[in-house]
């Protein structure tokens, strides 16, 4: 098993004929992902990478019944692309696009609620169930199937973590980048819940970051749910510069949350194994898993 995508998942590419989308769609096809169609307004009727291209997601859904869509469009068209996919009945939408304005994302979140669709991203490398399906832009070859679920707010740092795991002899069930933007679709909590019941997954690695509250929410969820599998976490940014502050309002809205120390403390309290040295994500996970026997 795996979560969200598997070898049977039928995948649509929005913005297929663009340069970046073309490059990564080729890599996905090479990996074995079941791409079934593309959408580029004005290019309906063409074939691209051997895939039929449609003018609208609605037409693509009618013709090819994709269940998942991966989006490569310019930032200011990102929100509409997500809405179009959701309105057409796609239930899992993966948005690679970086730089979508935050108010657009607030509108997207309301829209997704109405359509009951799930979003991964935006500003995410996507997700991969190794050996089955890759819906994203991560280098496929560093992954291998196995027992570790990964949920990460980062891009390349996820590759680093995966690489370490694979080097330590540990494959992955599914690795999900939830995206680095302030407002994203699925967060740690929803994905932890999916990994909870996934039989292939024996441990979960969280890659967090300073800012926001996703890690704190995850800690609360893990504590409350009596999570049955070991969870490890590395939170990046303990030494990061303070960054520009969001006025006083930031503090009023977010309180004292958001710092790396705060997140680490909350996760530790929730029973999460904290990894201090990001060079030891793989070996630490291997130790934990071998100690289970």
């Amino acid at each position, binding site marked *: 098993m795996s979560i969200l995508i598997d070898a049977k998942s039928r995948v649509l590419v929005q913005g297929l004929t663009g340069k*970046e989308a073309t490059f990564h769609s080729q890599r996905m096809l090479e990996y074995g992902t079941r791409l079934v169609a593309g959408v580029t307004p004005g290019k309906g009727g063409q074939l691209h990478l051997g895939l039929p291209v449609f003018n609208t997601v609605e037409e693509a859904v009618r013709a090819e019944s994709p269940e998942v869509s991966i989006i490569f469009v310019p930032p*200011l068209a990102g929100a509409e692309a997500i809405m179009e996919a959701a309105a057409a009945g796609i239930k899992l939408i993966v948005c690679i696009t970086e730089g*979508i*304005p*935050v*108010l*657009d*994302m*607030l*509108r997207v*979140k309301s829209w997704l609620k109405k359509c009951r669709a799930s979003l991964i991203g935006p500003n995410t*490398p996507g997700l991969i169930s190794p050996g089955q399906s890759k819906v994203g*832009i*991560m*280098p496929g070859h*560093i992954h291998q199937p196995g027992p570790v679920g990964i949920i*990460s*707010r*980062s*891009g*390349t*740092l*996820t*590759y*680093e973590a995966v*690489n370490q795991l694979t*080097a330590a002899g540990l494959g992955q069930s599914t690795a999900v980048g939830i995206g*680095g933007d*302030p*407002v994203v679709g699925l967060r740690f909590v929803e994905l932890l819940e999916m990994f909870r019941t996934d039989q292939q997954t024996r441990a979960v690695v969280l*890659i967090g*970051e*300073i800012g926001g*509250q996703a890690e704190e929410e995850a800690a609360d969820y893990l504590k409350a749910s009596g999570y049955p599998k070991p969870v490890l976490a*590395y939170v*990046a*940014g*303990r*030494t*990061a*510069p*303070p960054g*520009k*502050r*969001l*006025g*006083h*309002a*930031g*503090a*009023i*809205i*977010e*309180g*004292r949350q958001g710092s790396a120390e705060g997140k680490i403390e909350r996760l530790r309290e929730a029973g999460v194994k904290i990894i*201090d*040295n*990001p*060079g*030891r994500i793989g070996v630490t996970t291997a130790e934990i898993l071998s100690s289970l026997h």
Partner: protein
Amino acid sequence: MLIHEFQAKDFLRRLGWGVPEGSLAETVEEVKRLAGELGCPVILKAQVLAGGRGKAGGILKALRPEEAAHLANRLLGSKLVTAQTGSQGLTINKLLVEKAVSPKKELYCALAVDRRNENLVAIVSQQGGLDIEELSRFRPQLIKKIYFEPDEGLKNFQARQLAYFLELTESLVKDFVARLKLLAGFFIEKDLKLLEINPLALTEDNRLVALDARIEFDDCSLARHPEIASLRDESQENELEKRARKFGLNYIKMDGSIGCLVNGAGLAMATMDIIKHFGGQPANFLDIGGGVTEEAVSQAFELLLADTQVVSGLINIFGGIVRCDLVARGVVTAASRLSLNRPVVVRLEGTNVNEGRRILEESGLPFIFASDFEQAARLAVELSGQPR
């Protein structure tokens, strides 16, 4: 993108809000003239793009035009270092000269994106001023928040709830409601992330006056608001950071000795974390991003070496969208131009790693190769002369 206080107050004025009588000055003479025209006492406010100006001495009161001139002379052209500027500070090129207002009461009013609730939020407090953050922790009952969606906008009844919470007189309630709605419309139309009026003075003659204002726009939306993008004040950016931005690089100067060049913000932070873990000090945060060109990589590497505090370098690339060979070419170009005189540890992984390594090796330049992330960090720390 943060704009200056005087720019924020221009917007507020156009939206019907009261602001203190005042004007912008760039010379001591102008300040003196304005102080005379406005009538003292006046407040001189350093226009730098950072918070914490008051505590840092960037906001001063003058009782006579001569005093104003004296203070202006001290402020103009100097660097103001606040809790938010970093140690280099920001140059004061402009002063906002305002007639002093003595408020009966200082309120707080803000609109912001609340990423936790995935909504917009309007916030008011009966007690504004510098202690608002403490207040939110210890006396949250003095603060009221109303959530609203960008498409729906702030409703009249929501604005009324805030107005009555502030215990305004009935005539001010109507004014406040109308203006707050204009503010919310502006916030949504122009893609703001934050609009903060603090303090919002309630004067003896029962008027509301915005004594200070902070407006921050969403960088991602500037492409659809060219009139907003044009408000950027490049003089307020660190030279290195400005150069980085021009090439789409995300660079932040720090105080250590190990220069880092990494792809991806998360990996860049992890690289800094691991350097500290092994007892080193990073000299910067530098994320070359995903869509980087060879020329930008080259610029990035020059930027890194332009920092004289840098003793050793660490290039940490996990190729994905970014190809290792492209990075290698950019680095070699820059290193050749600059005559590389400091040790640089290189760790490449991912897309086109072999080609990248070959390019670096064949360059004949003294790169030190590491086989993994941890080893790379150890080496860089050792070479920086600060081993654990």
